[in-house]
């Protein structure tokens, strides 16, 4: 069965978001027990679980289709190329980009940011220039810019946040100026759950002629993303946080910008012709895809997008919002618990600390109850510093979670409090 056949099987049986029990059946890992307890998976911001259709697509690809893309004239290569390119089209539709050539496959959001920093950044940012990020960025949206700033003698400026974990937009307005050459900002914060006002951020940056990169690693699985409505110049995300395989993701870039940018890496597939004197680069998007890509990963991601979009995003959003409200209410009943990240516009994340109990002890005790959460700094050490905590415990939601999962979490926390009483 080809990938298009796989997507057909999803379309024939479109599950409704209300029917969570049936949706959970699609995720084989959720049926498992951990330490003798049913698995309660609440670490979706780290990575999401994979529906059977994605797993089957990977097996099918390697079983019946494996070959290299954009090279062979033989049957298998043609099939693989077709499915690989059709995955690109699915991403283009998911993000509502205008052309497939604006979608570049990468290993994930991190590589996407590095691609832009390396290519656009090195071309456009010089001594004394400024790059604006925010205080809630993941390390992957801090470090590539620090490296660039160090190399070029440029300066990193940081939009501060308030105690609820919301951007201080007035400070952002003050940071913008003639020195600003790029704004790079997270859409949905992985450690706070804050949804940032991207349209407004882009509009303000564009009034200075400054392009904006949006880190959508957490947003894509939880929010409708329309890059043309957002107006952003670059948008990056990871497949594994969208129920797809690890090691695959994409960068959206406006064609006009991508066209003017130098390649990210040199190698096969990114060239039109090579002599020892001169190399002509390939057209978009291939100019940015040197070497054999993660073909299986891309096709697997395509299957994940088919599965995800069949669930209907507005229903997912409404359901997850309800779950978040319920989780917030339940956790708030624990007196010694403090939620970190209480923005008005928020999705999917319940980050918290409990007085006198380190997050790792919470994590270990919950794990013994079969509950998987993340504990630590979530690759956002500056956020931990901002809130004066060494680490937080974080439960992060996906559409396959239920109120029963939240109840299990609260019961697990009762056990934590009991041990520490």
């Amino acid at each position, binding site marked *: 069965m080809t990938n298009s056949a796989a997507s057909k099987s999803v379309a024939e049986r479109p599950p409704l978001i209300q029917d969570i029990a049936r949706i959970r059946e699609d995720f084989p890992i959720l049926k498992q027990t951990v330490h003798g307890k049913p698995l309660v998976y609440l670490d979706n911001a780290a990575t999401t679980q994979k529906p059977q259709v994605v797993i089957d697509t990977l097996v099918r690809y390697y079983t019946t289709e494996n070959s290299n893309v954009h090279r062979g004239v033989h049957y298998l290569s043609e099939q693989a190329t077709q499915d690989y390119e059709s995955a690109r089209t699915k991403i283009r539709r998911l993000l509502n980009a205008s052309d497939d050539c604006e979608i570049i496959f990468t290993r994930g959001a991190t590589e996407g940011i590095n691609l832009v920093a390396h290519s656009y950044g090195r071309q456009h940012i010089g001594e004394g220039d400024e790059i604006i990020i925010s205080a809630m960025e993941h390390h992957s949206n801090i470090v590539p810019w620090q490296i660039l700033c160090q190399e070029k003698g440029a300066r990193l400026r940081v939009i501060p946040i308030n105690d609820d974990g919301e951007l201080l937009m007035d400070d952002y307005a003050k940071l913008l100026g003639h020195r600003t050459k790029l704004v790079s900002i997270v859409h949905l914060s992985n450690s706070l759950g804050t949804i940032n006002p991207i349209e407004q951020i882009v509009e303000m940056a564009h009034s200075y002629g400054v392009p904006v990169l949006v880190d959508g690693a957490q947003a894509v699985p939880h929010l409708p993303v329309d890059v043309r409505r957002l107006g952003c110049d670059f948008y990056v995300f990871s497949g594994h946080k969208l129920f797809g395989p690890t090691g695959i993701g994409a960068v959206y870039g406006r064609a006009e910008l991508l066209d003017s940018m130098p390649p990210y890496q040199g190698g096969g597939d990114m060239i039109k012709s090579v002599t020892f004197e001169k190399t002509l680069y390939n057209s978009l998007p291939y100019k940015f895809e040197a070497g054999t890509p993660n073909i299986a990963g891309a096709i697997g991601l395509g299957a994940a997008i088919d599965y995800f979009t069949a669930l209907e995003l507005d229903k997912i959003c409404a359901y997850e919002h309800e779950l978040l409200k319920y989780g917030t209410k339940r956790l708030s009943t624990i007196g010694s618990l403090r939620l970190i990240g209480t923005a008005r516009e928020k999705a999917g994340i319940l980050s918290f600390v409990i007085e006198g109990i380190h997050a*790792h002890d919470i994590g270990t005790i919950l794990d013994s109850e079969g509950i998987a959460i993340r504990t630590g*700094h979530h690759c956002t050490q500056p956020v931990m510093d901002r809130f004066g905590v060494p*680490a937080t415990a974080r439960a992060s939601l996906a559409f396959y979670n239920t109120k029963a999962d939240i109840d299990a979490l609260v019961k697990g926390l009762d056990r934590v409090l009991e041990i520490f009483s």
Partner: protein
Amino acid sequence: MSQLEELYQEIVLEHYSRPRNFKKLEGANRSAQGYNPFCGDKITVYLKIEDGVIADVGFQGSGCVISKATASLMTESVKGKRQEEAVEIFHSFHNMLTRPPGSDFDNERLGDLEILAGVSEFPIRVKCAVLCWHTLRAALEQKHQTVSTE
């Protein structure tokens, strides 16, 4: 006793909530800092060395139960010991935590530290238990750089 109950047994929790020698040591002639970026645990170990003997020891910092209780027990264990003996205790302690599941270990030098034997069932938490020891060793060797478990 379940693995979890062994890990969080009363005496361990008691060392966590009332750590021994939890102070900046006046008159310390050696100190070092340790950091576990995985957990965010931070510790400073202070030593007063007289004629090759750890005459007094103190520590400060924040961390999880395992890291703080181990540091507390460590200070009790090494106080009055010769420097080489302290390092040998660390080796025995390390062997206890990294032994194959279910196997025996040499407890001769360990004393109360033996109550942490259950940490070996939680490999990801071993780092928490050895941070203070790496920091102690750095203080003994007078390394000024912050030691890390990573």
